[in-house]
């Protein structure tokens, strides 16, 4: 099934070489890792390169609104128990970035690939994955008009008849709608704190009833499938009812959920839950997320939250008051330019924390916090924000480009 038994064609080899050359030029020019430009060049030489590279691998795709980079990391660690893994670990998750990552892993047995939500159906067609892990879908980057429900619909059409084993979160109605057209689904009760994108039945439009952890449509009967795996507190419960303890360095419920899905996905490749979970403990930070950085005698924990569902999960993992919290929000292209989503976040959860506000859109945040009745301080930069806090832990929560700005600032 795996291994490089079939060599790449001369054309594919040329494409890989051209891509590597372009990436090297990009790195020298100081334009980042070069993985995206390398992939673009390689795909121009050989448009089928992605499919060709994947043919030699057992591929797992990971997609979601939130948690896909972390889950890709956790699952890659788990599968390394069985053999070498190639992965787009830095989050370059569109076809060019994926191609580039796979081109760098000629000895690998497994490809663990994070895929941007909009490209999932296409990539799944190209690489014929053995498994696909689907975590959650919620509102994100509103100005791009990729409507959440339409995305679930596209996944459903794209995955219908897929031969991959789908490992899917039974607690997210949109994920269940997307996955349930596939012949083989492993349902994982992985939880979903954010519920406001799935009050309406994806099948018939009826109002979903959501008592406790269950959900169902009273009109058409579409309902939560019976899971075979479950996240239960600090444990993953396997299909035999055995509860395996989760020990992660990564904080929060959402990461336990990511670990539960990764454990179920790894089991599909024969990795024992105990082994998988032990290996996941090694993951300490993912592309800077959750990293604790010492800067100006304070310990800043860097937390990425890109959308309302992400902020909700982040609030549940931070240290309690009086730990100071820095909030930073931008609205550049990669963030989405409509800041309305700030009003879907329940900032009253931060009551009691000293709050410092930063970023291009600090005034939007200021109005949001003022209306929530919270005390806060608007700061011109990170230095000012950090100076107002006593030495010790600071939780720094930022959206996408604001997070990158923070990392650069603290030299992470």
């Amino acid at each position, binding site marked *: 099934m795996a291994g490089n038994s079939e060599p790449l064609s001369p054309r594919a080899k040329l494409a890989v070489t051209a891509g590597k050359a372009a990436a090297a030029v990009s790195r020298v020019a100081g334009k980042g890792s070069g993985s995206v430009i390398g992939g673009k060049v390689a795909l121009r030489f050989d448009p089928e390169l992605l499919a060709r590279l994947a043919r030699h691998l057992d591929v797992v795709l990971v997609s979601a609104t939130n948690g896909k980079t972390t889950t890709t990391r956790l699952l890659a660690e788990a599968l390394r128990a069985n053999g070498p893994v190639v992965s787009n670990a830095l989050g370059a998750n569109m076809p060019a970035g994926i191609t580039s990552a796979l081109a760098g892993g000629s000895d690998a047995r497994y490809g663990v690939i994070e895929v941007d939500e909009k490209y999932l159906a296409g990539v799944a067609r190209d690489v014929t994955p053995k498994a696909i892990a689907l975590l959650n879908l919620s509102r994100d980057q509103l100005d791009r008009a990729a409507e959440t429900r339409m995305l679930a619909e596209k996944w459903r059409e794209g995955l219908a008849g897929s031969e991959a084993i789908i490992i899917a979160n039974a607690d997210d109605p949109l994920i269940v709608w997307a996955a349930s057209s596939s012949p083989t689904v492993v349902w994982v009760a992985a939880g979903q704190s954010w519920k406001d994108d799935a009050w309406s039945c994806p099948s018939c439009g009826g*109002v979903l009833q959501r008592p406790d952890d269950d959900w169902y449509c009273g009109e058409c009967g579409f309902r939560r499938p019976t899971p075979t795996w479950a996240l239960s507190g600090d444990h993953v419960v396997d299909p035999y009812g055995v509860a395996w303890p989760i020990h992660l360095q990564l904080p929060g419920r959402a990461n336990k959920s990511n670990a539960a899905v990764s454990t179920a996905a790894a089991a599909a490749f024969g990795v024992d839950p105990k082994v998988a979970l032990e290996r996941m403990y090694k993951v300490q930070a993912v592309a800077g997320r959750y990293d604790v950085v010492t800067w100006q005698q304070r310990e800043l924990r860097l937390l990425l939250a890109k959308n309302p569902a992400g902020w909700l999960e982040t609030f549940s993992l931070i240290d309690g008051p009086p730990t100071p919290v820095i909030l930073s929000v931008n609205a550049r292209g990669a963030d989405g330019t409509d800041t*309305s989503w700030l009003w879907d976040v329940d900032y009253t959860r931060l009551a009691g924390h000293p709050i410092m506000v930063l970023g291009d859109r600090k005034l939007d945040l200021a109005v949001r916090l003022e209306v929530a009745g919270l005390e806060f301080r608007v700061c011109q930069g990170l230095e000012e924000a950090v100076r107002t806090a006593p030495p010790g832990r600071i939780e720094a929560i930022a959206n996408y480009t604001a997070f990158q700005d923070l990392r650069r600032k603290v030299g992470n």
Partner: protein
Amino acid sequence: MSESSLRVVWVYPDLLSTYGDQGNALVVERRAMQRRVPVSRVDVRSDQRIPTSGDIYLIGGGEDRPQRLAAERLRRDGGLSRAVANGAIVFSVCAGYQILGHEFVNDLGRPEAGLGLLDVVSVRGEGERCVGDVLADIDPRLNLPPLTGFENHQGVTHLGPTARPFARLRIGKGNGTGDGTEGAFNDTVFGTYMHGPVMARNPQIADLLIKLALDVNALPPVDDQWFEALRAERIAAATQPA
């Protein structure tokens, strides 16, 4: 206003709450409380009856299918129209604005009947989606400072004779008709394409609704420092080319 408290009804957050629409309800509540006006808010899901005793009804934006479902359920329910007949104030955004008109184009590409509470008809635009910061002058009758907002829609809304344009555009697409209008209103029913949410960018719209509901001409001033700072920044952003 009936009895002693201001009753705010947020219509169908399960269907029409895609663009931070809760923000408008939060700003109205906050500004009423700051004036010591007792305020209660009811969020009405689309499988519940619309109460007819509210003072201010807020209805937000949403995706195409939820918009059709909301229109079907509001027509069947009839409560919002009865509330308006009783003198209630309605403020609507984007998909909600289209629903208050006579007709809009639904997710199936067919005309869908609205509630006819505003004399407007909406169709789908042919061109690119309207996305970006907007600046406009609100109808002088309403005595409000300039409108700042963020638009993100593909609708084109034509106004009939009994609907007045809510604002005249300086920057942005607004109603998308090319005649420089944005939104619509009559005595008690308002519609706009503006997100932001619009009341976070224009808190005096919230004050206007509160004054109409209380039937008073003025409200005690409140500290608008952060609102004013945000307004100045967004107005500057709209007027400066990116």
